[in-house]
């Protein structure tokens, strides 16, 4: 097989926007692949990772997995289907919504990713940027679904969603398929003044996949983002979610949820970055790990000088379902303003024994009681999602829990 770097260069040279891509590829070369000795990568099974094992996706796959896309399309205003990052179907027209396909980002757009190898690689070799614009004041009647199917490749989907001032929308990003794949995803969401976005990012990739996702939301004045990230799949699931409160009164609620079994690793990173005054952010992270699965939650609250009356909170609960499972919680604060409220709470532990007894004492067998409680742990999160999505995800969680053996 051709080394990955070589096929990447061939691909980049053949693109009409080669110059910007080459710049990104050079930056990627300069940064280099991460190693386990770097703090932010210490939980990744990098020993088992080799970029050269993957073939770069240079064309759309012929028969991608679509069961999740199909299920979501029944509740969607439109479904944009991507295969290995290529647009397969740009969906049906929705009034006030433009879907376009733009060249890869270059130059200044790469600044926020300056030292992030996987994001730079995405900028170099993504097939293009799927761009959705919801025009000023438009309220989209149903979810805009971006369904990404992955083949046995390295693929680099990239989306950019813009809500113009006062626009309101629900966007669902879904990832499926991806046996023996690398899915390296970059998402950017710009919310104009007073815009309101409900965003659900869900991945149920094959358990052999590496999923590396980075999502950045930038919120203008009084914009509001309700964001849920749910990870059930992948061997290594890395999800970094940044919300930047650029305008006063902006508000972000982020809920992250994951379930790990076997030898899965979920590596969730969040950054609540407050630039403007009177901005609020709430993070609620709940994950469960069984078998030998591991998880890490790393959450940064960053508040700039001048972001007065900021209110930023983090809550992180981890459920350990076997003695071999392991969860880490790493909260961080970086605050350069005094007039703020910050709160943090976290817990790591097994199922509550008294709650379990209570259910058993109603006649529920122990295994069922455990299953109900684990399901309940997730239901608390899924209940906050748009109902049609909640139903689908609840069914997936039930299926994932169905096979589970819990100690005790």
């Amino acid at each position, binding site marked *: 097989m051709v080394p990955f770097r070589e096929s990447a260069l061939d691909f980049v040279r053949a693109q009409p926007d080669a110059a910007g891509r080459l710049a990104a590829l050079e930056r990627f070369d300069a940064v280099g692949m991460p190693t386990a000795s770097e703090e932010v990568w210490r939980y990744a099974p990098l020993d088992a990772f080799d970029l050269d094992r993957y073939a770069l996706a240079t064309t759309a796959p012929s028969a991608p997995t679509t069961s999740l896309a199909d299920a979501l399309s029944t509740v969607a205003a439109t479904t944009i289907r991507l295969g290995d990052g290529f647009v397969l179907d740009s969906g049906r027209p929705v009034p006030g919504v433009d879907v376009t396909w733009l060249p890869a980002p270059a130059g200044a757009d790469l600044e926020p990713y300056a030292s992030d190898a996987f994001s730079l690689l995405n900028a170099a070799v993504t097939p293009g940027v799927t761009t959705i614009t919801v025009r000023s004041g438009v309220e989209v009647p149903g979810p805009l679904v971006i369904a990404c199917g992955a083949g046995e490749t390295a693929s680099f989907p990239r989306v950019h969603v813009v809500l113009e001032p006062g626009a309101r929308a629900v966007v669902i990003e879904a990832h499926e398929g991806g046996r023996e794949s690398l899915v390296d995803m970059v998402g950017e969401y710009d919310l104009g003044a007073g815009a309101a976005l409900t965003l659900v990012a869900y991945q149920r990739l094959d358990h052999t996949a590496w999923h590396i996702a980075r999502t950045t939301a930038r919120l203008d004045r009084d914009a509001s983002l309700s964001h849920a990230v749910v990870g059930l799949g992948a061997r290594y699931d890395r999800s970094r979610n940044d919300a930047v409160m650029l305008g006063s009164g902006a508000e972000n609620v982020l809920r992250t949820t994951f379930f790990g079994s076997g030898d899965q690793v979920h590596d969730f990173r969040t950054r609540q970055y407050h630039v403007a005054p009177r901005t609020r952010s709430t993070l609620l992270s709940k994950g469960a790990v069984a078998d030998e699965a591991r998880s890490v939650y790393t959450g940064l609250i960053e508040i700039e000088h001048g972001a007065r009356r900021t209110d930023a909170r983090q809550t992180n609960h981890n459920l350990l379902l076997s003695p071999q499972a392991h969860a880490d919680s790493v909260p961080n604060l970086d605050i350069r303003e005094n007039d703020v409220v910050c709160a943090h709470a976290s817990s790591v532990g097994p199922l509550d024994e008294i709650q379990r007894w*209570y*259910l058993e*004492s*109603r*006649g*529920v067998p122990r295994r069922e009681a455990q299953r*109900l409680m684990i399901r309940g742990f*997730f239901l608390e999160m899924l209940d906050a999602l748009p109902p049609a999505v909640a139903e689908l995800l609840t069914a997936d969680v039930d299926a994932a829990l169905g096979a589970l053996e819990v100690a005790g």
Partner: protein
Amino acid sequence: MSVLTIQGLRVAVGDREVVRGLDLTMQSGEVHVIMGPNGSGKSTLAHALAGHPGYRITGGTAEIDGVSLLDLSPTDRVRRGLFLALQQPIEVPGVRLADVLRAAGVDPEGLEGRIRVEAERVGLRPDLLSRFMNVDLSGGERKRAEVVQFALLRPAFALFDEVDSGLDVDALGAVARRLAASSQEWGCGVLVITHFSRLLHDLMPTKIHVVRAGQVVTTGGPELAAVLEREGYEPFGAPSSDA
């Protein structure tokens, strides 16, 4: 007809024995009341019978028709016929009553409707029961939710711990009537722990057991209630010290 027999039961909490040789027998269809001062071990008895992990049985037996409850898992104890309604019901976030009842083997046919009917019988707003179990419910609502569970599980025997606490007078009457009716409806043996003698009008118990320091010191008819009302627990003597 079934019989619940508790003999010489001893229960420890931590390293302290709190129930110390307790005897009690009741038949299906009977309504009994347990009264006793605070700290006399009534809730300890209730939790131990239901297999709560914080309580250790150190002696004695508890059987239904000769089958030892103490050898069974908490699940099998209620399935075999002894249900406990807690003094302080526990919150279980994310878990709903209907799912619990289905998992407990209650007939799923028309379940939501039956839950609604039973809620209304004890004056509980049915929609409160579609919330996560006991989450955001008041003390009195939780107590009535326990009665709804009881009514759907239809156990042979049921023990209600401080059924009156948190309930207003109207709710109390409705709950007492619901319990009394269960003895007719399916021959349930109802055992109620309470401090509140007014409850007895609606409950119509056949026996009252007075518990002190972890033992039944007196068992009598409903007339005992009037004595307790007038004179307190003092006249009922101390439990035997060695027991």
